[in-house]
């Protein structure tokens, strides 16, 4: 399965394309980590816009009180599919796309360890996405019980739920294969001298993410399999009619679900930990503590799942345990934030687009972390459960967290990927518009949640009208700002000015020793790391 092309000398790397089918078949049959990384990133970009369209439909409906443009049932499908598509279609594949491009380049490996499996794990995704979108058109419509698929609603829902379950199976298989590939690549294919503690932090965070993925994705697969057999084969795992327990589903789901939120954020931590030192022209402050902090976050993530379900009626001892464990996560996370700030301290900083997004990330992710601490307090959480405060919290850590870091990563590595520079002015505009509109969209949701507005509801009491209108305006601004990114990326690829091998003065990882664009085959002769 290993595909290390040992019959090519590094010298004629540039005419490799002759050995590959052209046109669409190049992309379908490719086993090249750069091609597959590109496919992952474009796929997630498309899913990002698709999920964004669902979000804007939601915000249009919520622009003013009353039911205007969609049925309540369809509204529920919109919130459910927005969540599923953004999580499994946009954020996770984008992270795998970054890993595919960057992990081999950063550790001096010629390709991923299992190149054909790599191809397979990408090409499963379009089928899963098709199932999800097709579910809108089946009788009963798409899944409408929330992305968490809580029983008993998901046991009783129409066949859109079956398509969703199969889509989750397929996406889960894809991420498991991707993770196995990344772990094996990092553990077995590092260049001579690249010890574990010399690895760029992006590789470390992805290694830990990959372990989380193979630990919890199978549990989600098991949970949705149980849903499926409850629905069609007469089992009663979650079906109270047969002695099952719907709350059990929540326990199993969140055993997956909480590590999942770190799966979505750890790769972003890695990207930010790469960008900030580059533009501060200083090595990362506290490298070893970053590695240990990431590991402790990963371990703690298995011990906090029940903070998502404080209201199910668990004993006070359980509530206290999960409350304190959750608060404990603030410690390693605080270490990370401290290290990022200490890296910038007295650095000779410049503020190109990647750095702007990285700083925006640190600022807004920390804000989202603080609201997370507020929600960790059990009595407060019981008050705020299922309100817009929760929506505000997780959009701060997922949009301003994961997504902003990915934006930064795209601008940072685009010159290496396509050999051309993006338009810096447009990038800065993209950052500031995203930053402003993001806050216009999601900051008012804190107020709405504190005032008691429930989430996943298409209509609301009139006292919530003003802030909802503000949030909807912000959402359209944020959505439209993303077209700038699309335009910038497309014009960069087609007609950007040529990029030097190392456009960022402070960058010091291995990929910058290669020419731009990175040749199709790289590091066939491993570099030697001191």
């Amino acid at each position, binding site marked *: 399965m*290993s595909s290390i092309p040992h019959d090519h000398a590094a010298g004629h790397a540039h005419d490799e394309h002759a050995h590959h089918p052209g046109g669409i078949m190049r992309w379908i049959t490719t086993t090249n980590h750069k091609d597959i990384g590109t496919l992952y990133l474009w796929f997630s970009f498309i899913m990002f816009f698709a999920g964004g369209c669902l979000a804007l439909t939601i915000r249009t409906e919520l622009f003013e009180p009353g039911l205007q443009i969609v049925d309540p049932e369809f509204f529920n499908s919109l919130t459910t599919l927005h969540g599923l598509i953004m999580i499994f279609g946009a954020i996770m594949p984008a992270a795998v796309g970054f890993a595919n491009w960057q992990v081999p380049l950063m550790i001096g490996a010629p390709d991923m360890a299992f190149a054909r499996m790599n191809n397979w794990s990408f090409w499963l995704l379009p089928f899963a996405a098709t199932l999800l979108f097709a579910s809108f058109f089946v009788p009963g419509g798409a899944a409408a019980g929330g992305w968490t698929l809580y029983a008993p609603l998901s046991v009783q829902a129409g066949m859109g739920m079956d398509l969703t379950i199969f889509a989750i199976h397929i996406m889960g298989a894809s991420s498991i294969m991707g993770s196995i590939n990344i772990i094996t690549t990092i553990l077995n294919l590092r260049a001579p001298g690249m010890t574990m503690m010399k690895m760029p932090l992006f590789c470390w965070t992805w290694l830990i993410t990959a372990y989380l993925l193979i630990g919890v994705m199978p549990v989600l697969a098991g949970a949705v399999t149980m849903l499926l057999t409850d629905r069609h084969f007469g089992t009663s795992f979650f079906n109270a009619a047969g002695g099952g327990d719907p709350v059990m589903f929540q326990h199993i789901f969140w055993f997956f679900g909480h590590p999942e939120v770190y799966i979505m954020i750890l790769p972003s931590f890695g990207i930010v930990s790469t960008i900030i030192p580059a533009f501060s022209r200083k090595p990362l402050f506290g490298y070893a503590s970053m590695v240990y902090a990431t590991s402790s976050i990963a371990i703690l993530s298995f011990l906090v799942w029940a903070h998502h379900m404080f209201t199910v009626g668990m004993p006070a001892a359980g509530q206290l345990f999960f409350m304190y464990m959750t608060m404990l996560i603030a410690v390693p996370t605080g270490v990370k934030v401290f290290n990022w700030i200490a890296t910038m301290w007295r650095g000779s900083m410049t503020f190109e687009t990647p750095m702007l997004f990285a700083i925006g990330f640190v600022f807004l992710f920390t804000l989202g972390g603080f609201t997370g601490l507020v929600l960790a307090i059990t009595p407060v959480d019981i008050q705020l459960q299922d309100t817009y405060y929760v929506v505000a919290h997780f959009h701060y850590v997922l949009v301003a967290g994961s997504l902003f870091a990915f934006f930064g990563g795209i601008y940072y590595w685009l010159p290496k990927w396509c050999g051309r520079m993006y338009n810096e002015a447009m990038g800065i505009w993209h950052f500031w518009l995203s930053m402003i509109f993001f806050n216009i969209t999601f900051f008012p949701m804190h107020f709405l949640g504190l005032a008691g507005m429930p989430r996943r509801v298409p209509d609301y009491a009139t006292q919530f009208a003003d802030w909802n209108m503000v949030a909807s305006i912000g959402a359209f601004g944020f959505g439209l700002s993303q077209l700038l990114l699309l335009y910038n990326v497309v014009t960069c690829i087609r007609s950007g000015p040529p990029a030097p091998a190392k456009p960022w003065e402070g960058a010091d990882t291995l990929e910058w020793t290669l020419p731009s664009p990175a040749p199709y085959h790289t590091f066939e002769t491993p570099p030697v790391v001191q």
Partner: protein
Amino acid sequence: MSERGSDDGIDDRRRSNRSLLKRLVTVVVVMFGFGFAMIPFYNKICEVTGLRNIDIADDAVNTQIDADRTVRIELDGNVNKLPWRFRPLTSIVSVHPGELTQVMYEVENTTDRPMTGQAVPSYGPQLAGQYFKKLECFCFAKQSFGPHEKRQLPVVFVVDPRLPANVPTITLSYTFFEVEGNES
């Protein structure tokens, strides 16, 4: 890792990739099984901690009858996809907290075949459940009915006098479910 140049090195690496792949796939398979293993694990926890013992009779607590207070008990009977007729004989009773009370439900199997069902109680408000002590209930066991058999089934209960004062009414609602595997 360090001998990429030679063919031996490539074979070595391929072998170590394969063995890592096997170990990681084992983790995936074990975790898939772990998801299912959580079901008996949680059931055991619920059993040990008594979080979900709805089919066990409560102890007859020695309590004083609080004659100054009257609680209205509303009785309700439902069936879940089960062709049975199921109803309480009286739908509302007034009781004093601490007072032993018996109510009757009537069940009729309207089909031509013997069937087995199990009733599951629920309470409104939910909070009242812990103060509603059932000493005897048809919901503690599976109930079998012959074709067109009709029976009256009792519930004996005491409302705990510690019931919060702001609960004037308790709704006791049973739902009968067919027990799987009793088609014959």
